[in-house]
């Protein structure tokens, strides 16, 4: 056991001391702050105050309504210009020039036919802005609808009332009752957790592969296996690298908790207006979630590091490793390809199946757990299948590893790997 510990210690210390570890550990929290603060900063400062023209070619009261709609909410400032049919061309030229000199962002054309046809025209330099166009469309739709209703004799009071602000706010209901989390916060949390699981499992498993390959390439492996059993060496390696992963996730976890707790101070530091800061939803992370993430990270990491260790053991160079790791990478990829589908319907059939398959469950189950309620029986089944697979894969991997680390030259085929795994 002392020998295994020596390997654990070496793998851990060598990695923690590296620049790579330092940079990625620091960049994690920086990234978290950026994704939290940036939207708030943008929401606080961006948009608003578009200056546009409105060319009214005899549309009557529709133009009045449009101006009112556009100017509510301070999203647009409108210069109104009325023109007869004959003067329309000249007015249009004048407005176009104003756009070109950047006096205004663009202009809207409303004609007498607009009310009937529902067709308006907007010309401007900001037509590619999805946000601006969505606001324009909404304002135009509202104005036309109200004008039509009014002309059909609907009570102006009713029309006014119908326009009152409508919004659907979303609150997640879990077994524990309605949570304080909004849909957005849930989505955000689930997405981040899924992504972190994928990255952590992938990066640290690949690290195990590199470590195996390094010992093979430098030929130190032969000295090592003269004093350690190959399994002891592999075990120490996997624990050491995994420990680095846990340390890094721990640092990130503490940073995330601190960010959630002290978010107002953080926002203040970045001069985010209090109003915008309040609009940013940050998820609450429960203890059960932490335990689940840890369990799935450890099991997922064990599974993939065993497979990547095999890749490291059967190749002799980095370029060979690039090729040989493809099947393992391909096995992991579906886990992230289904991200959107699982987030969309965390209790759907796809989510159920993917949550049970051990190669994907370490990514899918934490997402599902964050975004919905997972029945305990299903969670237990998923973990049990994963754990059983880990035992099987590690057993086979250790046997191939034992033979592979002393083999150089041609990479073995599948038949040969099977033979290695079988021989005593």
């Amino acid at each position, binding site marked *: 056991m002392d*020998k295994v510990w*020596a390997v654990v210690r070496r793998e851990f210390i*060598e990695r923690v001391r590296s620049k790579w570890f330092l940079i990625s550990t620091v960049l994690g929290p920086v990234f978290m702050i950026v994704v939290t603060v940036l939207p708030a900063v943008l929401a606080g400062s961006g948009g608003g105050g578009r200056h546009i023209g409105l060319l009214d070619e005899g549309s009557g009261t529709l133009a009045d309504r449009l101006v009112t709609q556009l100017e509510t909410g301070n999203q647009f400032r409108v210069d109104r210009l009325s023109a007869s049919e004959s003067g329309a061309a000249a007015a249009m030229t004048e407005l176009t020039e104003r756009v070109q000199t950047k006096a205004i962002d663009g202009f809207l054309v409303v004609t007498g036919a607009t009310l009937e046809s529902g067709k308006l025209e907007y010309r401007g330099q900001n037509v590619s802005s999805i946000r601006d166009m969505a606001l324009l469309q909404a304002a135009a739709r509202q104005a036309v609808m109200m004008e039509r209703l009014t002309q059909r004799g609907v009570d102006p009071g009713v029309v006014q009332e119908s326009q009152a602000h409508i919004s659907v706010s979303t609150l997640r209901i879990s077994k524990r009752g309605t949570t304080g989390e909004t849909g957005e916060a849930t989505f955000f949390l689930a997405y981040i957790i899924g992504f972190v699981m994928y990255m952590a499992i992938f990066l640290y498993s690949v690290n195990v592969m590199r470590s195996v390959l390094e*010992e093979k390439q430098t030929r130190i492996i032969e*000295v090592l296996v*003269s*004093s350690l059993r190959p399994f002891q060496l592999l075990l120490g390696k996997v624990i050491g690298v995994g420990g680095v992963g846990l340390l890094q996730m721990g640092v990130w976890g503490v940073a995330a908790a601190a960010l959630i707790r002290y978010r107002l101070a953080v926002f203040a530091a970045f001069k985010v207006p209090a109003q915008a800061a309040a609009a940013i939803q940050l998820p609450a992370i429960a203890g059960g979630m932490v335990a689940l993430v840890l369990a799935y990270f450890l099991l997922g990491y064990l599974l993939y590091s065993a497979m990547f260790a095999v890749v490291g053991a059967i190749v002799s160079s980095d370029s060979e490793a690039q090729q040989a790791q493809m099947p393992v990478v391909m096995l992991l990829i579906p886990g992230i390809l289904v991200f959107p589908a699982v987030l969309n319907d965390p209790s759907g059939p796809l989510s159920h199946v993917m949550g049970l398959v051990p190669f994907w469950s370490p990514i899918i189950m934490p997402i599902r757990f964050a975004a919905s309620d997972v029945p305990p029986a299903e969670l237990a089944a998923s973990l049990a299948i994963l754990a059983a697979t880990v035992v099987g894969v590690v057993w086979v991997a250790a046997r191939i590893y034992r033979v592979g680390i*002393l083999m150089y030259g041609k990479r073995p085929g599948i038949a040969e790997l099977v033979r290695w795994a079988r021989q005593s």
Partner: protein
Amino acid sequence: MISDPIIQIDGITKRFGEFVAVSNLSLSVPRGAVYGLLGPNGAGKTTTIRMLMDIILPDEGTVRLFGDARGGREHSAEIGYLPEERGLYPKMRVKEVLVFLALTKGVKRDVAQRKADEWLERLELSAWGAKRVQDLSKGMQQKVQFIATMLHEPALLILDEPFSGLDPINTQTIKDVIVHLSRAGATIIFSTHQMDVAERICDHVCIIAHGRKVLDGGLAEVKRVHGGTHVAVAFDDGGDAAMPIIGDRALVAKADDYGGYAELALADGVEPQQLLERLVGSGARLRRFEHIEPSLNRIFLDKVGAADAESARGVARG
């Protein structure tokens, strides 16, 4: 029990697919010996050593170390193993590598650190202890590797081609260390195909070829048993005048000719005196004429040559 062999190999065989790397090999290494495992490339030396170290398992036969069958790994605290292919972690610091490798052999950390300092000092590498392995010259890295092998002061050193790739200065340093450890009571087994080195340091040898033992025993014994009459001759002028005499099969059975120097095995019944008279008569300018024991190189060439011929016959029969 001093007489107990430290290594006892009985009838080991190792096959890789169709290829038989080692065939029914038996040998024993007495405690305190400097034992040379000699053979041409591909003879099975490395395979034999790997089986000693429990890195690969023999298909047949048994290996006993220190009187038991637990294998080299279980005895790693008492064994210093230097594989043929060497390497260290390039990014680790020299002293840390040494301490780490000692820990994997079961040495305590404080002891490992102290010994690492002592050995670095002894091989004049103290200034490099905190440097990364990759910053050292190749020669220095080889010395570090030797320190890693010997740091825990093992009772048994197993060295696979310890002198290959060393420059003359490092060869001398390592030879000195081996002799020092031997005097201190360690048993040393090493493989080589450099007969001159083996002849100077070994007291026991085993020659293998094609995975089979050709001969083994104490060096003096091996030389005595080999028999024949051997003469070393050297000429001042290249010895052109002596060539017809050396080439006379009635007089000289085998000649190992280096130009100005030659080792000759005389034909049966020929006395050195007869050869000397002929050489003087030929007018060749003799610088040296000495009745010698057969060199290990001569024995090796005779025996391995014979084994090759036998193996070739075996192939022809098969």
